[in-house]
């Protein structure tokens, strides 16, 4: 279980609950797909996950090629190996989906997520928050006399660790982008 305990909207099926300890053969896979950037393409992808009962643990999408109208969707999903295979095959059926890559299977990849984290406090807690942010190479992007907003980039686990540390120091609000990922190497 992730140690995140955000009250609003949190549930046992939190999108950040990447590791389900109850299902031993459940694996987390990072899928990247290149799609036509056309109306409804994201709805097709997430509708597939919702309709067939697959998990979405994290989702990012943005246009990557303006002239070619291509977007890249990165989804972190989890399930037994057979379900992961079925998810990829089903994604491949969607007409505006050009490529589906399983970055977890296709060798090493880099995965990064960005988070903005607001921490409010005074005195020693405020100093401690700043000191920990420095250790995590997190930047302060906004501050008031009572608060800092930190920007942190890293793996989801690093962000989990940072938010866990910030909680007793006055964590107010958090925004996470979800995982963006690329395979390592030249191609």
């Amino acid at each position, binding site marked *: 279980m992730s140690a995140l305990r955000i009250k609003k909207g949190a549930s046992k099926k939190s999108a950040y609950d990447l590791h389900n300890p109850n299902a031993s053969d459940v694996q987390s896979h990072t899928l990247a797909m290149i799609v*036509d950037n056309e109306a409804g393409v994201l709805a097709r992808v997430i*509708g597939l996950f919702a309709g067939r009962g697959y998990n979405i643990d994290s989702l990012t999408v943005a246009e990557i090629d303006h002239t070619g109208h291509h977007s890249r969707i990165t989804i972190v999903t989890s399930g037994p190996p057979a379900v992961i295979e079925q998810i990829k095959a089903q994604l491949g059926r969607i007409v505006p989906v050009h490529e589906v890559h399983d970055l977890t299977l296709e060798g090493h990849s880099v995965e990064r997520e960005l988070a903005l984290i607001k921490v409010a406090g005074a005195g020693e807690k405020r100093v401690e928050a700043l000191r920990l942010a420095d250790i995590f190479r997190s930047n302060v992007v906004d501050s008031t006399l009572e608060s800092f907003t930190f920007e942190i980039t890293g793996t989801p686990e690093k962000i989990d660790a940072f938010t866990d540390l910030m909680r007793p120091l006055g964590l107010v609000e958090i925004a996470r982008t979800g995982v963006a990922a690329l395979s390592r190497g030249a191609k």
Partner: protein
Amino acid sequence: MTRQMTGAKMVVQALKDQGVDVVFGYPSGAALPIYDEIFLQNDIRHVLVRHEQGAVHAAEGYARSTGKPGVVLVTSGPGATNTVTGLMDALLDSIPLVVMSAQVPTFMIGTDGFQEADTVGITRPCTKHNWLVRDADDLAEVMHQAFHVATTGRPGPVLVDIPKDVQFATGSYTTKNKSETAHYQPRVKGDIDAITELVALIEKAERPVFYTGGGVINSGTGASQLLRELVGATGFPITSTLMGLGAYPASGENWLGMLGMHGLYEANMAMHDCDLMICVGARFDDRITGRVDAFSPNSTKAQIDIDPSSINKVIQVDLPIVGDIGHVLEDLLRVWKARGRKINKDALRAWHGQIDEWRALKCLSYTPDAEIIKPQYALERLQALTADADRYITTEVGQHQMWAAQYLHFEDPNRWMTSGGLGTMGYGLPASIGVQMAHPDALVINVAGEASFQMNLQEMATAVQFRLPVKQFILNNERLGMVRQWQDLLHGSRYSQSWSESLPDFVKLADAFGCKGRLVTDPADLDDAIAEMLAYDGPFILDVMVTKHENCYPMIPSGEPHNKMLMGDDTTEDAIGTAGAALV
């Protein structure tokens, strides 16, 4: 040279360029510009249905019986939402359809305008792909792409949503050849190493079986020919799903009959006991597999399918081959012949001996009745009296559908149109209309139950208006027969809502629609009644009163494997366990 024309004209032009000769549809406000263009030309016939669901099923019947895409034109809002059942039906059974729906003008989208619905949103999960066209300059290209996507790879329904202002706007027409279709090109050639591996399995197999499905028919008549050649040359027994009937002839010596929940004993036993299962264009549907963890426990399973998502979805296979059935069977035959046409003859002889023992059980036998027409008898007589005709059969959904699959014999592909995956009551009558439009001179019979028939019976008016001599062969038990059968099996024969009171008089109904009907209750009159139906030059409703409480056997009860079939004389008490009871 690009031609300038209105969006409405482009729609009709694109249909002509795609070789469309029939459109099934229903007009209203947002579709009127296209309907005006339909009015101004004579190449494309428009069949006015009485409900948009009927248009989609008619297009399915047209598509299934010709191999060409069926085309539907409906208006916005309710016109589009009424197509949803048909679209889902076509998606599950892989039927190529191009449905055009009109939409409120682009500037009204999102305002809850009159007859506005989020059609692409509603139909996204029940189409292979869909488009909302916001610019007349894109319309022709989208139309051509729609036909390409519907008919390429695993076929399926697509929908093009066309706002009314786009129909009026002028834009440049893109021809079929210039349209961008390069991106969507599913793989058709199978991996030759995998095919060679399958040949090696074929050479050694002791107890092989071909398990074929609708994919063979979708791949075209060439695929059925290749399948026949392969089965004939290897001597392997062959069974088929409901959707695949006719790909291999029922008169063929290796034919086992249909498999599955109401499949033949010999077919299901062969599936259970085989050592090599060659799945050709079928998808291990739950009606086929029965209990998954006891499915054909000792076989090596090979699967040929054009859709990678059909592989390892329900049953893990040992040797998947992704490709078009026709292409793969051609390569398979070539490699098998080149390697010396080897089969394991002695083992095969023993296997056929075992199959003959199963056949001897005569699983389709039933107790005849001199007083009341047995539904099985009615279909046996229909088979006997139409065997020589080039006959197209559609069905509704329920017991009659299963009996039709068991007792009617199909010698050729594209002659059997039924709702397999979705199980849509109300499919058969409109489907028969679509088939008859495609084959004006052929004998087209809808085998129906009285309950299913009533779900789209308004389409009798369509049949009469377009002089389509479709024969409605109703097996009338005054019950929802399959529901009642399951209530026997699962709910202590408490027949909750599974009977019909105040049924219409179908003969008078035929009269009201302006066609002919006849009621038959005595087995002795049945042949004469069928002969009258066949001879009548026009739509005909034959109301065959059959046994009220007849169950359809053989049956694999829910949650049981292939070798645990119920036969006609078995008790239905406790046939289904608690786990099975939760299944559908």
